[in-house]
């Protein structure tokens, strides 16, 4: 803003001095001697632009401070006493754009001439300004400007506000001074401009209940700005006392500041010129594009004001160990002042705090141990280690535990969350809900056949991913069940788990394929195998049996297409399923192994393949072992007709196959296998079998 030129021209044009130009008044030497005619039009234009800019982007600050050193309070009092403006003036609406056009003509028309001497600058110019009905009118219209101007102190009550009026004006002018460094665009102002269009703006600034209300926050933020300013000479004592009293008056902000005082041992919220205020990044309504506030180049948004406590809910804290480490490091760095770096304080402590807080917001989660696993785990281990050491040294003492406040997950999905003063979008909601800005939607092809192989594959992969998410929830529920839950809770949890399991199971089955081949697409993908393996413990016995039989019936396909050898992941879960099978079920499954192709005479293709596959062989062994276990146990078997025959046939077949072909090492060799074979087979075959199996495994199958 080039306000420096303006006041000179303005005074030449017999305009009332806007407060923002006060600073320039001292500069102007030959105001009277200017070429009034030539510059008049320019001045008018400049002034128009200037006023418009000021109203839109915030008052220019650099002028006021320089001028009011004389006796700032006087003109203010005078100001405050001024009667309302003459009726000619239209009432000013809160919206800024309408303000300036109306104000401008008023200024020009009613600007009192004369009284332009330099000596009268200080009080008289002010008085002159105050005499101007337009100016006085602006006081009444102040609420609108207040909503624009972040400098206005937000107070808890109207009455206080009234008392504060002159001072508020003063304060606002201080706020404007800050803009001197150059930035026209101040976040709060811009945002307020946007906000000012919202209805019911008036009482808002008094209402501190709105969590994200911009204006109130911004007014509250003033306190910080004054701590920034070189109060020294400029600040009237009145203001000084005013500011600290504002915490007294509006208690709420400061009490809510308390938690943040804990973070990193921040200085107290009492504003004083040198100590930085703890700042809080504040959530705001979304602003995009042209509306988006721009941070000033010289001040990060955080340094402009103390933002009222506006954390969305309880906020996570640093782990106490972490805090201790940080403070230790800080102490260490403070102890070494010798090597002083000219650039070392490029970031002020406030800015650092602000960023820390911003990041802390993003850390909120219901389940920190899950979401922030490495951090939590690291400090948990450190705690444990310390506890162990202390155990030796000082006896048992509870190491400081991190108490993360329980955070209720935000129910509403705010796709784009904008924190005031931040640069663009923050990752707050991205952990759980990806930003809508990046919306990758797969084009859905309705016809299965039309999809090419790659697309089908992608579909399967996507489906598996979704199912995995549900599976993770199921497993989480399982883990939580281990904790002591209330009766009702546990039941509810069980039901939910059931539903989810059902869902996954049904989803795994491909709708279009025939009954037997349902699971295949998912099963051919290694991640699908992992999914199934983890799902099996949760399935009912029947469902699990179905899965098992499906696996065995498609074993050749699975084995041949198991490029990355991920089939073994299914083994442990299937083994458990096998352990619960009845004899008839077992026989049914075993049949799959022994079915041969119609046109092949020797042995089953499946069996020969099985011998070459770790998984297949292990599965076979497990099945046989189960059969043997059942047979040798005392439990009545309830076999169906033909079961025993099938059993013996199978055993023979398997034995002959195993003894003939080279075997791979199975995942697990059950110990009762050879006992089984001994019962049915002759010694020679057994011997051969045994040596074959042993050569595969490398150890004795059975000491004999």
């Amino acid at each position, binding site marked *: 803003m080039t306000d420096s030129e303006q006041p000179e021209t303005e005074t030449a044009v017999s305009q009332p001095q806007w407060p923002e130009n006060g600073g320039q008044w001292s500069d102007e030497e030959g105001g009277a001697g200017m070429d009034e005619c030539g510059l008049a039009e320019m001045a008018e234009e400049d002034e128009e632009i200037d006023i418009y800019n000021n109203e839109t982007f915030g008052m220019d600050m650099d002028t006021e401070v320089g001028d009011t050193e004389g006796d700032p309070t006087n003109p203010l009092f005078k100001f405050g006493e001024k009667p309302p403006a003459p009726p000619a003036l239209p009432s000013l609406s809160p919206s800024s754009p309408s303000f300036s056009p109306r104000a401008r003509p008023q200024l020009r028309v009613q600007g009192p001439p004369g009284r332009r001497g330099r000596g009268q600058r200080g009080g008289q110019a002010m008085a002159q300004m105050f005499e101007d009905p337009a100016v006085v009118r602006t006081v009444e219209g102040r609420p609108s400007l207040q909503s624009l101007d972040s400098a206005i102190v937000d107070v808890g009550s109207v009455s206080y506000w009234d008392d504060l009026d002159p001072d508020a004006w003063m304060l606002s002018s201080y706020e404007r001074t800050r803009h001197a460094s150059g930035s026209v665009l101040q976040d709060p102002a811009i945002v307020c401009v946007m906000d000012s269009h919202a209805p019911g703006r008036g009482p808002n600034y008094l209402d501190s209940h709105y969590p994200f209300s911009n204006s109130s926050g911004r007014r509250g933020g003033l306190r910080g700005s004054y701590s920034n300013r070189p109060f020294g000479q400029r600040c009237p004592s009145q203001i000084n006392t005013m500011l600290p009293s504002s915490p007294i008056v509006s208690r709420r902000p400061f009490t809510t500041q308390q938690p943040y005082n804990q973070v990193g041992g921040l200085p107290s919220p009492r504003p004083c010129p040198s100590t930085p205020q703890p700042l809080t990044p504040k959530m705001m309504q979304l602003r995009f594009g042209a509306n988006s506030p721009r941070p000033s180049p010289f001040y990060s948004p955080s340094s402009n004001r103390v933002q009222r406590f506006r954390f969305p809910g309880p906020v996570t804290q640093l782990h106490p160990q*972490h805090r201790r480490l*940080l403070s230790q490091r800080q102490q260490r760095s403070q102890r070494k002042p010798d090597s002083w*770096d000219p650039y070392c304080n*490029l970031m002020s402590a406030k800015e*650092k705090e602000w*960023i*820390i807080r911003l*990041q802390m917001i993003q850390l909120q989660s219901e389940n920190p141990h899950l979401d922030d696993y490495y951090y939590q785990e690291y400090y948990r281990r450190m705690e444990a280690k310390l506890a162990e050491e202390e155990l030796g040294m000082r006896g048992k003492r509870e190491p400081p535990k991190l108490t993360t406040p329980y955070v209720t997950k935000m129910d509403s999905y705010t796709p784009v969350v904008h924190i005031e003063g*931040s640069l663009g979008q923050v990752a707050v909601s991205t952990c759980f809900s990806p930003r809508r800005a990046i919306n990758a939607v797969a084009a859905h092809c309705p016809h299965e056949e039309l999809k090419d192989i790659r697309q089908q594959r992608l579909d399967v992969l996507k489906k598996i991913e979704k199912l995995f998410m549900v599976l993770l929830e199921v497993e989480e529920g399982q883990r939580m069940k281990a904790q002591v839950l209330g009766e009702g809770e546990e039941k509810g949890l069980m039901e939910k788990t059931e539903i989810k399991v059902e869902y996954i199971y049904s989803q795994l089955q491909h709708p279009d394929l025939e009954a037997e081949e349902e699971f295949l697409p998912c099963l051919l993908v290694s*991640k699908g195998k992992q999914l199934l393996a983890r799902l099996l413990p949760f399935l009912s016995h029947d469902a699990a049996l179905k899965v098992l039989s499906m696996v065995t019936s498609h074993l050749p396909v699975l084995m041949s297409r198991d490029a990355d050898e991920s089939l073994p992941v299914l083994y442990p879960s299937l083994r458990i399923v096998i352990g619960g099978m009845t004899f008839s079920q077992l026989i049914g499954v075993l049949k799959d192994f022994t079915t041969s192709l119609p046109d092949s005479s020797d042995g089953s293709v499946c069996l020969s393949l099985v011998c070459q596959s770790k998984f297949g062989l292990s599965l076979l062994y497990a099945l046989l072992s189960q059969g043997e276990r059942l047979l040798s146990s005392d439990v009545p078997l309830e076999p169906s007709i033909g079961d025993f025959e099938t059993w013996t046939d199978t055993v023979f077949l398997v034995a002959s196959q195993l003894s003939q072909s080279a075997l791979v090492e199975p995942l697990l060799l059950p110990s009762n296998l050879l006992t089984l074979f001994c019962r049915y087979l002759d010694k020679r075959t057994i011997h051969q079998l045994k040596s074959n199996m042993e050569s595969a495994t490398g150890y004795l199958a059975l000491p004999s």
Partner: protein
Amino acid sequence: MTIQHNTGTLPSQEKHLVLLRDGRTLIGFLRSIDQFANLVFHQTVERIHVGKKFGDIPRGIFIVRGENVVLLGEIDMDKPCDTVLQQVSIEEILEEQRLQQQAKQETEKAKVTALKDRGLSIPKADNLDEY
């Protein structure tokens, strides 16, 4: 996940080391950050490692866009440096790097031709199962 660790002591007497997504390693004084982990590095040095040798290329001031940061850590100057790494000149390390890249490309090519001869092909990333 967070960058709180360093900001407490940003009046940095300590240098920081950042690993970028393209594999570059930068070492310098971290002067400023923002919530996206955009970094301002001062008196930056790019360190190239080849085998047991490394070389430092002075780069001046770096502004790194946050999305390219893999990890960032503080270098503890106080810790005893008992490394086996041996510092060499810039020309030498660049030469070493070039040779390393060349060797890698050659082995890759040989592998691909060998597989092709056998009728196999290493699937590229988009054909793999896992996301």
